[in-house]
């Protein structure tokens, strides 16, 4: 099966790779672009570990073909911090011990950022439902939800 040349933008950088049409965007990020921060927990859209943004929309990269990335803008966990400056969510996740094994963390961070971009003041219920497609088996979600709420609060204060 011949491969297709794909040009796309990842975290602001223009990149190119050759993809088999059957490969998912997740495969391409991890295996062709060495961006292994995006994780595969299921490959079937159920766990959210592979969360990325595609033209600003939160998606599961395991449910997007690599070749569909042509000409699009992709955001991954590797692009969350601004240089040396962690995103408030990243800091709050550490501070609240919102990660145990940390495998789900990249997906939660990307998904939570998409939430706060859209809704800077979510309720606990809104956080829980927005993140329902991100499975965490270690934490029982408590500290994750607290970290997201706390990051949102800090970001709201900074915005004023």
């Amino acid at each position, binding site marked *: 099966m011949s491969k297709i040349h794909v040009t796309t933008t990842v975290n602001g950088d223009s990149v190119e790779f050759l993809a088999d049409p059957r490969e998912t965007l997740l495969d391409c990020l991890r295996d062709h672009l060495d961006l292994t921060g995006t994780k595969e927990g299921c*490959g079937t*859209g159920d766990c959210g570990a592979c969360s990325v943004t595609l033209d600003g929309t939160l998606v599961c990269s395991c449910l997007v073909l690599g070749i569909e990335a042509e000409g699009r803008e992709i955001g991954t966990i590797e692009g969350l911090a601004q240089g040396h400056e962690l995103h408030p969510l990243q800091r709050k996740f550490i501070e609240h011990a919102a990660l145990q094994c940390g495998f789900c963390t990249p997906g939660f961070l990307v998904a939570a950022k998409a939430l706060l971009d859209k809704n800077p003041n979510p309720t606990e219920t809104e956080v829980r439902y927005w993140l*329902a497609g991100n499975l965490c088996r270690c934490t029982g979600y408590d500290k994750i939800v607290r970290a997201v709420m706390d990051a949102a609060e800090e970001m709201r204060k900074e915005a004023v």
Partner: protein
Amino acid sequence: MRYHAAKTFEEAASIAAKADGVTRFLAGGTDVLVQLRAGLVTPDDLIDLKHIDGVQDITRLDDGGWEIGVAVAGARLGAHEALCADWPGVVEGMELVGSTQVQGRATLTGNLCNGSPAADGVPGLVAAGAVAKIVGPDGMREIPIEEIPAGPGKTTLAKGELIAAVRLPARGAGGGDAYQRFIPRTEMDIAVAGCAINLRVEGDTITEARVAIGAVAPTIRLVPEAAELLVGSTLDAATADALAAAVSAAANPITDKRGTSEFRTEVVGVLARRVAQTAYDRAKGDRS
């Protein structure tokens, strides 16, 4: 697998018509990629519809109805205020599909054409009396949504045919619709039973009604005998009970890993009662 980025529906139809292996259209891909990954279906030809003009549009038609493009993702339906105001039941069904991430991709048409009896977006469309605009080798036709599902994983679309848009009728005065499903968790499950009801009231009295049920038969289907019970009533307790009984009687579910036949039969009736109340309240002007 050959990937085609079709530029028109006609091109997509013609690729599909000529293909001799397994063909799939690619809308949001949330079913296609899962099936690919699981090794269930590896299409020989995969025809991406997202490069066709207009497929991302939600358009108000001259008659007050709506046309929804085949690549409109669930989250965009939910963000469309006017559509939500007219057809909250249709939108809430689609919005139940998957997670936030899945909502960023999954489409109503994909939900319909995947042919799952448990598709959450479809009962609302059926209850609303929506139609599908179909393009095929023989040109264009329109058929009611309920005529498309043909059994688990199957549709009545012929080889080379595809859906070019879904059309919702004008809402009109005194209308309200709603959809609910039952799942064991709060999110991320496939419906164990689902029910959509669309009705119209004059004063307190229901004058028109359509009732559709999902996940309790090989296809999503209308239950006219249940709708008839509603018409002429004010949704009093006796009517609601009769509705629940009629809907349960119409159910013909299987027992599988997601629920027993007995449970599904009972719960779809419970849902019908709850959904009717919401649709009724909406019709009477309570938009919540």
